[in-house]
């Protein structure tokens, strides 16, 4: 969406933003002041879909000067150091952690904070010598990340192999209870030893991380990838140029039948989004000079050839509920067989278009843009009518076993990421085996990404990132808080009541 001159003063005089947040917001306003019809050659039709909220560009801006998500190959730091920052290859844990913190400062993204900070376990493992002393260093490092990168989209990966460093990291995140970094264990039951997986499951219940990703499935779809930001699966040593999203709950409004949606309105909007992505990428690659100037490219941390783009959707539940009502059914997405059919028919149209569109500068993913189940955001009034991704509206979920089986088939479409969240009750802490059984079952039935947390913890997942409930409420009341995601958290809760997500007591 374009910004207005008056946005500048609003930000400058805000009581709810820190200095740093104002700075980044002002930069973002500047990017959105320019007219995309002039700078990116958006057509009037494309512009119309942004203005009527059917397509949301997540305020990425029109003067694009860096990719949205960057997934550096930090192993380059181990082997070569970094010339631009005058860093030698580290020789011990202190040097490694120091160099990483320095490097993080120079990894851009849409929020200006790094969305991927490395396979922390494997980067540290060669330098672990004295467990107790190293534990203190790792814990201090993780705490530094939480305070210096005040953005919950900052993501670290561990696994699938078990490492000493991985165990120390799990121990530290439980003790710290910090929202950042978000974390994923790339899980493969044939590689990850059970004892390590159980420790990860325990941490997931206690501090809502790491989440579990289905490494086999992602590997077969994407090859060498990492999980970054919320739960985005992207090529390693590359990333994603851009992520606009279709607001399905908005697109559906006013159609008179499912057929009209599937054969007329939806294909039009979807095609417009594909061509907008083309234009955004062209500007970034051909005009912005990002790939010509970034030391990350020159020194091999990232390669232009490893970038792709994400094709987001949000609000499937709302679109389906709208059609169910049109069809005279008193049923809701999540517990309706017909609802699931409608949901799949909508996603089929979108994925057919995305999969037949010749993308630009996306050779790494066969010149295709990758579908992504976007977790939602609070940028417009319309976001009240767009439930995150393909999730069931909070309060309308069936019991856990039914819920997982409903959700898993929808994961199939979303090569660049989706995930489901389940709040479990306290009893699961003594039954981590059962948690792992559920996760393995979900993966066996096709799920890509699962996360669970205890209902009563302060640290919870909003839609894909972590916030402290207490901070989110503070932000919602207009106080400045450290993280930009705290206010997002409040917005999301306000719309979707995610803090009241159904608690699972023994399958209930």
């Amino acid at each position, binding site marked *: 969406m374009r910004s207005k001159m008056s946005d500048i003063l609003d930000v400058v005089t805000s009581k709810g933003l820190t200095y740093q947040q104002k700075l980044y917001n002002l930069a973002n306003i500047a990017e959105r002041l320019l007219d995309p019809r002039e700078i990116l050659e958006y057509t009037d039709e494309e512009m119309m879909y942004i203005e009527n909220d059917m397509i949301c560009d997540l305020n990425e801006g029109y003067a694009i000067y860096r990719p949205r998500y960057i997934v550096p190959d930090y192993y380059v730091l181990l082997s070569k150091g970094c010339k631009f920052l005058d860093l030698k290859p580290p020789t011990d844990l202190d040097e490694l952690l120091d160099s990483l913190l320095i490097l993080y400062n120079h990894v851009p993204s849409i929020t200006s904070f790094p969305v991927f900070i490395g396979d922390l376990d494997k980067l540290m493992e060669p330098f672990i010598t004295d467990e107790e002393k190293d534990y203190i260093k790792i814990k201090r490092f993780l705490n530094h990340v939480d305070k210096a990168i005040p953005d919950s989209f900052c993501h670290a990966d561990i696994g699938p192999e078990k490492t000493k460093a991985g165990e120390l990291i799990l121990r530290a995140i439980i003790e710290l209870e910090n929202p950042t970094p978000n974390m994923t264990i790339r899980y493969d039951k044939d590689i990850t030893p059970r004892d390590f997986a159980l420790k990860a499951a325990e941490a997931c219940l206690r501090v809502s991380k790491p989440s579990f990703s289905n490494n086999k499935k992602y590997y077969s779809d994407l090859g060498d990838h990492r999980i970054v930001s919320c739960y985005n699966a992207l090529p390693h040593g590359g990333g994603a140029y851009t992520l606009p999203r279709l607001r399905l709950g908005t697109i559906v409004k006013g159609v008179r039948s499912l057929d009209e949606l599937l054969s007329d309105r939806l294909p039009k909007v979807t095609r417009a989004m594909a061509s907008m992505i083309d234009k955004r990428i062209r500007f970034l690659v051909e005009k912005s000079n990002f790939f010509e100037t970034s030391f990350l490219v020159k020194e091999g941390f990232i390669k232009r050839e490893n970038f792709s783009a994400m094709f987001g959707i949000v609000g499937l539940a709302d679109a389906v509920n709208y059609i169910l009502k049109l069809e005279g059914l008193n049923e809701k997405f999540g517990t309706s067989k017909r609802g699931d059919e409608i949901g799949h028919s909508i996603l089929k149209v979108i994925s057919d278009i995305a999969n037949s569109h010749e993308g630009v500068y996306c050779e790494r993913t066969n010149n295709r843009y990758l579908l992504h189940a976007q977790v939602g955001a609070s940028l417009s009034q319309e976001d009240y009518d767009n439930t995150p991704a393909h999730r069931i509206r909070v309060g309308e979920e069936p019991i856990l076993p039914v819920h997982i*089986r409903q959700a898993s088939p929808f994961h199939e479409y979303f090569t660049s990421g989706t995930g489901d969240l389940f709040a479990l009750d306290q009893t699961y802490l003594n039954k981590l*085996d059962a948690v792992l059984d559920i996760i393995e079952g979900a993966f*066996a039935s096709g799920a890509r990404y699962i996360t669970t947390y205890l209902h009563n913890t302060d640290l919870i997942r909003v839609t894909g990132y972590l916030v402290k409930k207490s901070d989110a409420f503070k932000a919602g009341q207009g106080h400045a808080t450290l993280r930009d995601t705290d206010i997002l958290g409040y917005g999301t809760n306000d719309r979707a009541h995610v803090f009241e997500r159904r608690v699972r007591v023994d399958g209930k």
Partner: protein
Amino acid sequence: MENKAVVNRIIPFSNVDGPGNRLAIFFQGCNISCIYCHNPETINRCISCMACVSGCPSGALKTCDEGVIYDEKVCTECDRCIKTCRYNSSPRAKIYTVDELYKIIDDYKLFIRGITVSGGEPTLQAEFITELFKRVKPLGLTCFVDTNGFFDRERISGLIEAADKFMVDIKAIDNIDILCGTTMKNNIENLKYLLRLNKVYEVRSVIIQDYMDVENTLFTVASILKEYPEVIYKLIRVHTQGLRDEQKEKVKDKVPSAEYVRQLGEKIRDIGVRKVELII
């Protein structure tokens, strides 16, 4: 005739009925009746007295010639019907064939490690469950039986063979009739028998004062279990939550202190039981 059984309810994901995530099936019908029973509605078969029908606030219950018809879709699980029932039964129990249960289990097989049959007292339906276990095993699922230990070994020999493991709730040893209203006494003998066959996963005892010979029961079980280091002994402090008023009256002054339960746990460890779990 096809093998059928009355099921009080099915919990697709349970983390308290054996190892890992399990599907638990609660069969209707019990051979004892304990003071502190938390599911008295599983004890008897419905006799179609119809007393519960008019009390249902959401119209989930209707009468017909065969008895009560229950409509799951409109039931709000308010539990008023089971509170009304004076025969320790429930209008919500359903009749299943082995095939019907198999289909439900098959649906959940990816997420569970096995099934556990409970009750009521599941050994009363031994024949049905044996057939069910034989069907379910090829799915790669383990089959557990949760029993009070009061059964005739001969009669359920097929079930013992088909089951992977038993979970045995040893209620008491002496004066069982005061606690459970039964004159049967073979629970300890049956426990020993199952242990010899290596068929026991865990033993449980609920601790209530005065109604049972607490120390005699626990220490006898412990001295048996010390030879079986893999078997868990779980001690549960009785609680009154969710009990009916007349049960609460009887139980409320008989709840042992948490400290006492902890001491019992220590003593049992001293006797030589390796895996002791306390639920306080």
